[in-house]
């Protein structure tokens, strides 16, 4: 049985990597397809403009010939007809490219949106399953039963046992789990620990991420809200930045991480640079965030 659980844990980790890779590659493909279509439309439009200019030039030459009442304008007339056909063909190409784009763009948006939602849901599912499997391994390796709670970890109080699956749509405060790899924080003002000047340290935020995964998310999955975490803080004498209530409020309240979804499938940061920096440093793969489109 233990070997089976180990195999399941290994499969689960592989699936997690596969999901993240699929998400990254999918974003790249969506971006590449958008660029090809845009380039094609620009190239077709430029070609149409060139052909229209040729046609206008041909018409001017033909009209000038007619005005001079010369008898050798038929060659110019044929050129007008030829350039006219080339304009019609280029115009058709532009219309077809527009048609391709207008049919493709809704599919592109849907794919980005649904892939993102399903990836977040899948990562959440795997995150919920891993502790259960690990706790089984811990318990069996120490002679306990399969239902034992997980030991060790972040040194926090015991998490709610057997958390139900957390769907991205059930996170409090309208937040959703977003893979850190999909967040573009290249414009972040946070360069290192010296950038933390708002009354909390990187260590405080690491504690908060541990609290999030060990206590707050499992609690939220059981519909426990701020009052519960305040009460638990009181019982465990936790206050300030290192409290479950501050963790809950920070990740799901007014100061939640706020991201804007870009057309390339990545996210731009509106609020939460410090937490995202800490998440990267701590190897946290996904963060709860409020996402605007």
């Amino acid at each position: 049985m233990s070997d089976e659980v180990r195999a399941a844990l290994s499969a689960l980790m592989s699936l997690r990597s596969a999901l993240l890779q699929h998400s990254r590659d999918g974003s790249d493909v969506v971006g590449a397809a958008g660029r090809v279509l845009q380039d094609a439309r620009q190239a077709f439009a430029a070609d149409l403009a060139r052909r229209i200019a040729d046609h206008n030039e041909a018409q001017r030459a033909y009209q000038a010939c007619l005005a001079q009442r010369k008898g050798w304008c038929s060659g110019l007339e044929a050129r007008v007809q030829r350039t006219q056909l080339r304009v019609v063909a280029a115009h058709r190409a532009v219309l077809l490219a527009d048609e391709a784009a207008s049919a493709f763009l809704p599919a592109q948006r849907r794919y980005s949106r649904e892939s993102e939602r399903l990836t977040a849901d899948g990562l959440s599912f795997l995150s919920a399953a891993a502790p259960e499997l690990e706790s089984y391994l811990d318990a069996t390796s120490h002679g306990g039963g399969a239902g034992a709670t997980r030991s060790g970890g972040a040194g926090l109080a015991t998490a709610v046992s057997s958390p139900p699956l957390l769907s991205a749509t059930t996170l409090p405060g309208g937040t959703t789990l977003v893979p850190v790899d999909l967040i573009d924080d290249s414009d972040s003002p946070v360069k290192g620990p010296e950038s933390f000047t708002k009354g909390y340290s990187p260590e405080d935020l690491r504690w908060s991420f541990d609290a999030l995964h060990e206590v707050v998310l499992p609690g939220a999955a059981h519909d426990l809200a701020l009052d519960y975490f305040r009460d638990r803080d009181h019982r465990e004498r936790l206050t300030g930045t290192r409290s479950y209530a501050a963790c809950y409020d920070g990740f799901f309240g007014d100061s939640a991480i706020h991201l804007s979804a870009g057309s390339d499938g990545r996210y731009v940061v509106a609020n939460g640079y410090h937490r995202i920096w800490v998440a990267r440093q701590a190897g946290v793969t996904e963060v709860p965030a409020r996402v605007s489109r």
Partner: protein
Amino acid sequence: MTLLSPVVARHGDLAAALVRAEESASRTWHDERFAMFEARVLRPLQDEDRRFAAALEAAHQTLLLAYQSLTSS
């Protein structure tokens, strides 16, 4: 000008990688949670891959028609 065919091929690769990951996991993770993960995450993702592949292919074919229109004149 670049055609969409390299993008179509790349999307085919990533979709196939997800199918392989599912097949590999199914050989070692047998319990009901894997079945639920398949039903809730992997199959819907694969459905989205197929839907997107069809849209990519349609866009590719329409762009080809556009190129043919240009080069035939």
